[in-house]
């Protein structure tokens, strides 16, 4: 479940449940939203892990929890070996330098009343840099993201979406972090601007030795930046795979359905393609389905899928998937498969058998 290099971030059986409270005088917890439901993975130095899924799958909650913007309900988060799961403000201070975030909405994530210089220099000033040093560094940072030094005196509304996102990236880079968590950084941008920002992110990764957790719902964009990709559905990991393999050999039916749902910008291929449309809507995370959470919408579901939650099975070279009826795997691969440690505690022991 890991790439090469030392693990920078280790996540073990992480859970994030949100309580729903009701009651006349004293509010009791009656239900819980299972936003993140036992997720484990590792992220190594210099690596980019793409995290994909549709709305409600828990990827945004997971990214916020990793940044310790939220307190996990259960499980463990380790950054550079240190346990930061329940660290207080003091304990998190070093983490905050090393782990930064870029947000989705370039229009909402920048304070409209501050100049670019002020916005980008805030993290530097917070960590003790003098004003002059900070402003000089701002110039350097703007340069790295492809903006000009004179942009520092302007306000966010004077920039386009793509430029604003560059400002957000400059701010994230200010403290020289090791890991940047990007929450849908290009979804709100035009297609041609998306390409520019994605290329910029790749350049910055090479230049500064960064690691990325790239959260997105768009499988096509994620492919370009990622070394490995994790697919989430209803709070659980469905599949984690080296990037290319996810597209050439998706093992989990949900991944296949996601890929199939993406319209190909090529009319002939689109017409020739046979696809199964996934029916229905994603279910309620308050009351997730029993067994495999995808079974109500899965065209391959059988009886066992309703009763037994499938474990995450390790197939080969870091490709894992949680499914009783995996796609695109040979008999050999199935018999050689092992149960991954990243499997949720509630998952069974049963591995898929050769057909």
């Amino acid at each position, binding site marked *: 479940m890991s790439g090469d290099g030392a693990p920078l971030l280790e996540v073990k059986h992480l859970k994030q449940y949100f309580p729903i409270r*009701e*009651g*006349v*005088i004293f509010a009791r917890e009656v239900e819980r939203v299972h936003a993140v439901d036992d997720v484990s993975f590792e992220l190594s130095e210099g690596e980019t892990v793409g995290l994909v899924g549709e709305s409600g799958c828990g990827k945004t909650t997971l990214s916020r929890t990793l940044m310790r913007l939220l307190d996990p309900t259960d499980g463990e988060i380790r950054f550079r070996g240190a346990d930061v799961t329940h660290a207080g403000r003091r304990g998190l201070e070093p983490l905050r330098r090393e782990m930064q975030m870029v947000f989705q909405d370039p229009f909402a994530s920048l304070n409209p009343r501050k100049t670019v210089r002020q916005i980008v220099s805030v993290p530097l000033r917070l960590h003790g840099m003098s004003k002059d040093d900070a402003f000089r560094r701002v110039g350097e940072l703007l340069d790295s993201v492809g903006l000009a030094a004179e942009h520092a005196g302007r306000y966010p509304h004077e920039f386009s979406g793509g430029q604003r996102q560059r400002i957000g990236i400059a701010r994230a880079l200010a403290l020289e972090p090791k890991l940047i968590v990007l929450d849908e950084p290009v979804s709100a941008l035009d297609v041609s601007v998306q390409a520019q920002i994605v290329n910029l992110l790749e350049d910055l990764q090479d230049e500064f030795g960064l690691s990325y957790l790239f959260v997105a719902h768009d499988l096509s964009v994620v492919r370009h930046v990622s070394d490995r990709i994790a697919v989430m559905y209803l709070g659980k990991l469905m599949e984690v795979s080296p990037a290319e393999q996810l597209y050439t050999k998706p093992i989990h039916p949900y991944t296949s359905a996601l890929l199939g749902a993406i319209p190909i910008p090529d009319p002939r291929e689109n017409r020739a393609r046979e696809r199964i449309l996934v029916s229905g809507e994603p279910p309620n995370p308050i009351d997730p389905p029993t067994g495999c959470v995808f079974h109500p919408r899965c065209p391959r579901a059988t009886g066992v899928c309703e009763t037994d939650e499938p474990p995450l099975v390790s197939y080969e070279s870091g490709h894992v998937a949680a499914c009783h009826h995996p796609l695109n795997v040979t008999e050999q691969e199935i018999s050689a498969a092992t149960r991954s440690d990243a499997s949720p505690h509630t998952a069974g022991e049963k591995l898929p058998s050769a057909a």
Partner: protein
Amino acid sequence: MARFIIRRLLAMVLVLFAISVITFLIFQVIPGGDPAVRLAGKQPMPDQLARIRAQYGFDKPILVQYARTMKEIFTGNITSYSTQINVVDEIKQDFPRTLWLALGAALMWMGFAVAFGLYTAMRAGAIGDRVITVIALVGVSMPVFWIGALMNYYLGFKAGIFPNGGYVIFGQSPTDWIYHLLMPWTALSLLFIGIYSRLLRSNLLDTINEDYVRTARAKGLTERQILTRHVLRNSLIPIVTLWGLDFGAVLGGGAILTEVVFDLQGVGQYAYESVKQLDVPPVLTITMFGAFFIVVLNTFVDIVYAFLDPRIRVS
């Protein structure tokens, strides 16, 4: 829903308790508030004071006094120290005046606010908008006791157009009743007209730009239908709920100054006079009475809000 109401009732009990305790304690600590002294009149003799204290129980511990006063309030047996009249009876007599003052003013301010709000929103940026905005701001800035006194003096006393204060019971003469209330209603409304028309204007301008108004237009509705069913309907929701709260506040005591200036002999004026004399029983009773109304109206407003805006019902 039932749970909601029960919670509110419990909250009300707590609020009333807290208010009664605080008010009671205030009177215990203010200088010159010793009721025995006030009751005794000029140059009291010590034994006179002692007798009064024993009679009224002022020598007992505070807790006992408090408990006794509360019992008196709730059994309706509470008498004023200065006038010796039963407070609850007095309130019953005065309350209709306060009620009509508050209700009339509330309806008047709402009517004008909607008219002005609509007008200024439709003509936003034009001369008409700016003129009415200035008028509204002036209305907000004039204290009611000042404008009330001015109106009373110039229009009532000097010019004789309106009566010089006082209240006429509806049963006696409906026309006179309205006649006497017009100026107080106006004085009390001015402040609120200013606030509410600006608020409505702002809501309208926001709502007009909402996507669902565009959808309504794309459906082929007439501009009038769009205005009433979509723009006004949605913009008024927060206004209506605010109106309920302000009405409760006015009823619960916000009209004191108006009543005094125009000598309407309502509950507010009664409270004013009692405070002047540091007369504990009426003040305590009226305070709790007012608080009760405010809590009840708050609850009512919350229920109405949920009725008007279905999104609220979920939470």
